């Protein structure tokens, strides 16, 4: 093949680029080390036609190519890196030419796991030259807009080997980038991380599935909510439960979004397990400050859980057997890799053994037992229509059932409690232009609680139902205006049906079976909430970042309209190569609240809407902090915050939520709250030992007109000092040790400090029955006392074994290793406090097979 002088006009005949010639592989001949020599090697390839003006190119310049074989594309990039010689494939030829083009082009694409083709949400794509870049969105999609030229771009994601690509940008490029798992969660040097990362503050904490799965917690089960309890600013509720309390807020001020589906009751088994099976999780993100305007409906935090889409290359799965549960997950390609499925399921198994044992021991006709089970199933199906359109379909179902049966030859009494969530969503993800992604989603969500009690002896029968049903339609648009500016905007309409019916009872006349008392409170609230939002994300020069958001929403309940404007602002300024300061102001508004009389996650906790008398909960939070990355081994983040809460809801002092004589609206009070705190997080991100340690110093208070004589009092989860440590030690490639330790001040409680006599017999006409002489109790201040300090150590060890076709994992450990009795609740007798601890030392073992 001779050298053909370039015909400039060919440049304008550019048609569809076919990568085949540029992707041809060259075995490098080390004898010819000049540019001309390498060009000869390219030209010698059978299917490659090379054209250039010799006078434009320094043909005798020496260039060292280290590798033995490269593609034509890679070789040309190396030869002309940083020069003005560009190349382009035009028809059958590769034309080298001197560039005069100053235009900007789009470099867009998606980042995937090489093995599963799972999109990698939050992967960093950074231009190494100036340490500037972007983060892949929830679809793994990114867009860099670059001037014509050569660039070295690093693509990195936690737990994966980073890739550095040299690219020539002389037209818009689409790149699908595969990253290979590194086998560890070691983080890698990410160029310009300070500039691109959106998680170098405590406000937004990312948890990839690998991190979640490395911390086995109670009963050997990994749990996303319990892992989050180890993060600064997040308090655990009762011992062992998965409820979270973020920055002084209560349990109902957090929104858990499972692929965008709001989950209202997130706990199984009194909250000891969360609803979300970790084997299906791709990534979780907790946001507790600097809220994007996209988020609405919760005052304290948002937990975004992204489910895996499923392996697009092959059918794989896993199966686990633990002390309490059996679980499985399967995933694989659909339509020849154009789509994928993921299905995971989990169920407790003790009840399956219990009933046959009870029948065998007690007999069928005369038996008494209580049984409990929970289960959940998560399914996700995706289908790519074309490069610009994708459909996703989610189904989620969870159920819990508790049954208490007493049967003898004469009668049968039983109590059955059933509750669960059913949810489905359908999403259309569309990219009409490289700069725009539109995600339109329709969501159905329903939570139901049903109780059936039937007492033969007392002739009382009760059938009670409560729940919430939501239908949501939303559309979120991401507009990548430039490398510096991204605009998110969208709208959402929600139709919420609340049925906070607590209990209904029918008492029957014993002899005639005629209902003599009916108590039923069938109250239904319909709330229609419309929201619009817009977020401006700006990354300026010199490491300045600004996120400016505004959310406006309106809620209509009972013909009463409530509206809110929620401004959000987040600013960050780099203070050094690896350090930055940041600050945020957030206003969030919540049109529903959780009423709970206990500190457990129990199904009878009521979600209630705003009413004509109860205004929406509003939170104003300001926060500021400092972040530094030390030698890329340690990350240190400090943050302080101040939060005000308005229109908090709580049960009135003298009300019982389950007292049937009143509506819930008459048993609640609205008041205010405040919280402040300091958080410190130190992460070790590489090496054989990695993990994190955090310390939170915080206070949280409430004020209600008719509670505690109107005086401010500490909130029950006011725990001034909390230390959380999570560490993983990789002993060998296939053995790792994990240890979690938590210390927190005990939960607050009110203790009756005084006991005294009622009016007494002297004034008996104003009392009745036994109340005449019953003692009354009183106290000075609500929540004045604290449970003993809480602390606990969990240890776990994992043994991995790679077989030809399977991967086996044994997880063995011990919960509460040094047997600390952390009380669930306390009682006092004769001046001594006694505590009931639910979870003492519990060894656990779990076996997992992946294929």
């Amino acid at each position, binding site marked *: 093949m001779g050298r053909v002088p370039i015909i400039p006009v060919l440049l304008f005949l550019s048609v569809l680029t076919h990568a085949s010639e540029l992707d041809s592989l060259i075995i490098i001949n080390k004898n010819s080390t000049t540019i001309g020599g390498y060009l000869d090697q390219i030209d010698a390839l059978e299917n490659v036609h090379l054209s250039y003006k010799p006078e434009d190119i320094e043909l005798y310049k020496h260039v060292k190519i280290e590798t033995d074989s490269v593609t034509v594309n890679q070789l040309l990039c190396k030869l002309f890196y940083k020069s003005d010689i560009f190349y382009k494939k035009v028809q059958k030829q590769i034309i080298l030419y001197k560039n005069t083009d100053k235009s900007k082009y789009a470099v867009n694409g998606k980042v995937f796991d090489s093995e599963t083709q799972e999109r990698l949400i939050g992967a960093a794509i950074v231009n190494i030259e100036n340490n500037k870049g972007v983060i892949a969105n929830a679809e793994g999609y990114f867009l860099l807009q670059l001037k014509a030229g050569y660039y070295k771009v690093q693509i990195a994601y936690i737990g994966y080997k980073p890739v550095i690509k040299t690219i020539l940008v002389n037209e818009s490029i689409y790149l699908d980038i595969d990253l290979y798992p590194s086998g560890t969660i070691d983080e890698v040097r990410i160029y310009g991380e300070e500039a691109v990362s959106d998680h170098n503050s405590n406000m937004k904490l990312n948890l990839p599935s690998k991190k979640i799965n490395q911390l086995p917690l109670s009963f050997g089960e990994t749990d996303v909510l319990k892992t989050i309890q180890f993060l600064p600013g997040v308090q655990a509720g009762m011992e062992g439960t998965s409820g979270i309390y973020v920055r002084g807020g209560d349990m109902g001020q957090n929104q858990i979004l499972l692929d965008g589906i709001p989950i209202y009751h997130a706990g199984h088994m009194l909250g000891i397990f969360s609803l979300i099976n970790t084997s299906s999780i791709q990534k979780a993100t907790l946001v507790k400050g600097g809220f994007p305007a996209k988020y609405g409906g919760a005052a304290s935090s948002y937990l975004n859980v992204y489910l895996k889409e499923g392996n697009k290359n092959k059918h794989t799965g896993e199966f686990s057997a633990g002390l309490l549960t059996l679980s499985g997950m399967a995933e694989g390609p659909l339509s020849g890799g154009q789509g994928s499925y993921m299905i995971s399921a989990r169920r407790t198994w003790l009840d399956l053994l219990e009933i046959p044992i009870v029948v065998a021991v007690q007999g069928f006709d005369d038996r008494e037992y209580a049984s409990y089970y929970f289960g959940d199933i998560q399914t996700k199906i995706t289908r790519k229509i074309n490069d610009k359109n994708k459909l996703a379909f989610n189904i989620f179902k969870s159920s819990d059932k508790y049954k208490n049966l007493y049967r003898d030859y004469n009668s049968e009494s039983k109590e059955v409690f059933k509750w669960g969530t059913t949810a489905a969503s359908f999403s259309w993800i569309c990219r009409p232009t490289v700069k725009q992604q539109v995600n339109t989603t329709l969501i159905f969500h329903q939570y139901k609680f049903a109780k059936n009690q039937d007492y033969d002896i007392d002739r009382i029968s009760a059938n009670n139902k409560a729940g919430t049903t939501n239908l949501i339609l939303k559309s979120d648009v991401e507009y990548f205006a430039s490398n510096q500016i991204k605009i998110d905007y969208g709208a959402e309409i929600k139709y919420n049906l609340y049925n906070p019916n607590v209990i209904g009872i029918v008492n029957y006349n014993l002899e005639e079976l005629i209902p003599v008392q009916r108590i039923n409170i069938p109250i239904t609230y319909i709330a229609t909430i419309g929201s619009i939002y817009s977020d401006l994300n700006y990354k300026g020069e010199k490491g300045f970042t600004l996120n400016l958001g505004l959310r406006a929403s309106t809620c209509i309940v009972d013909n009463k309209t409530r509206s809110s404007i929620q401004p959000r602002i987040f600013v960050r300024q780099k203070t050094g190569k690896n350090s930055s300061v940041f600050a945020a102001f957030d206003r969030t508004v919540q049109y529903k609240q959780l009423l709970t009389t206990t500190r457990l996650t129990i199904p009878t906790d009521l979600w209630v809407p705003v009413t004509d008398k109860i205004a929406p909960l509003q939170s104003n939070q300001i926060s500021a902090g400092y972040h530094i990355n030390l030698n890329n081994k340690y990350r240190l983040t400090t943050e302080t915050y101040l939060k005000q809460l308005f229109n908090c809801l709580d049960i009135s002092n003298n009300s019982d939520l389950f007292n049937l004589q009143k509506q819930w609206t008459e048993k609640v009070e609205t008041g205010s709250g405040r919280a402040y705190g300091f958080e410190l997080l130190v992460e070790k991100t590489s090496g054989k030992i990695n993990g994190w340690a955090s310390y939170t110093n915080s206070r949280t208070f409430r004020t209600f007109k008719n509670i505690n004589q109107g005086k401010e009092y500490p909130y029950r989860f006011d725990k001034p000092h909390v230390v959380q440590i999570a560490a993983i030690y990789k002993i060998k490639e296939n053995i790792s040790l994990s240890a979690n330790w938590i210390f927190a001040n005990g939960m607050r409680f009110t203790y009756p400090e005084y006991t005294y006599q009622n009016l007494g017999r002297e004034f008996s006409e104003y009392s009745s029955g036994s109340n005449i002489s019953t003692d009354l109790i*009183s106290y000075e201040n609500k929540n004045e006392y604290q449970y003993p300090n809480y602390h606990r150590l969990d240890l776990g060890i994992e043994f991995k074994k790679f077989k030809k076709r399977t991967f086996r994992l044994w997880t063995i450990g011990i919960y509460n290793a040094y047997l600390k009795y952390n009380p669930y609740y306390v009682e006092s007798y004769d001046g001594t406090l006694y505590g009931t601890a639910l979870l003492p030392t519990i060894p656990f073992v779990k076996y997992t097979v992946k294929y």
Partner: protein
Amino acid sequence: MKHISFLLIFLLLFSCYSELDFEFPEKDQKIVVNSVVKSDSIFKVRIARSYPGYEQSLLNYPYLDDATVSLYADGEKLEVLESIDWGIYRSTTGIKPQEGVNYSLEVEHENFENVKTSAYLPPQTSTSLSNVTKTYDSSANGYYFNYTLNIHDAPGKNYYWLKVKELKEGYGDTEDIDQFNLTIEDELFDYKKMVYSDYDIFYVFEDTGFDGKSRSIKFKSSDEGTQYIVVEFHNITEDFYLYMKSINNFYSVSSSTKNDPPVIYTNVEKGFGIFGGTHVTYDTLYIINLD
């Protein structure tokens, strides 16, 4: 609460019960004053003391017989009440409470902080009974009396306390009629809006909605050999109302440490108890020849 039964299965499996290393700070105990100013009675007060929360006051002897209890009328000292026994102190002058006078009590005791409280005698509210009929209810297979209580509410905020009693054949004294045998057909007595005791035999309510107006309340009670019915109607002070309301809630709410103890209203400064006031009206309905 029954839903705590969810816990049982886990408690059985895993729970541990142990004494905790915890010391409650000792609080100074307080004087307890209980008294009701009544139109037809002399001043009578019961003085007691409180005990630490973990003790039961009635297992001890909670009464203070050696306190100094001074009675004041509009700021002027009337007398020091005489200690009788069991913490009871009463007037020795035989003075009965008068309307329009503010009475206050000061209680001193060497071992406790002095306490102070005040109350007054509310005006009497005019009431009457009318429209008495007797009907047969086939669904319940029994006879019922229907009658109307007419209340003439004075302008201003008023609080009331109501009880219906009956005397049955063969009984020597009147008995309270509980809510299972008494129907009050009035939205004022909607269970959602009012307060009543745990035994459902008296009702406490406000004059919201009929301030300064007349109000008729219809009653229906079963005839089980009833000879006469007495409607006991008290105009009570706001403090007494709030106290009764909180007492009622106290008994209806669980008071274990799983929930916060309910707050009992008191108008005794630096102490506990109630110094209330009531002016009672009795309306009697004799059941004669109603058939």
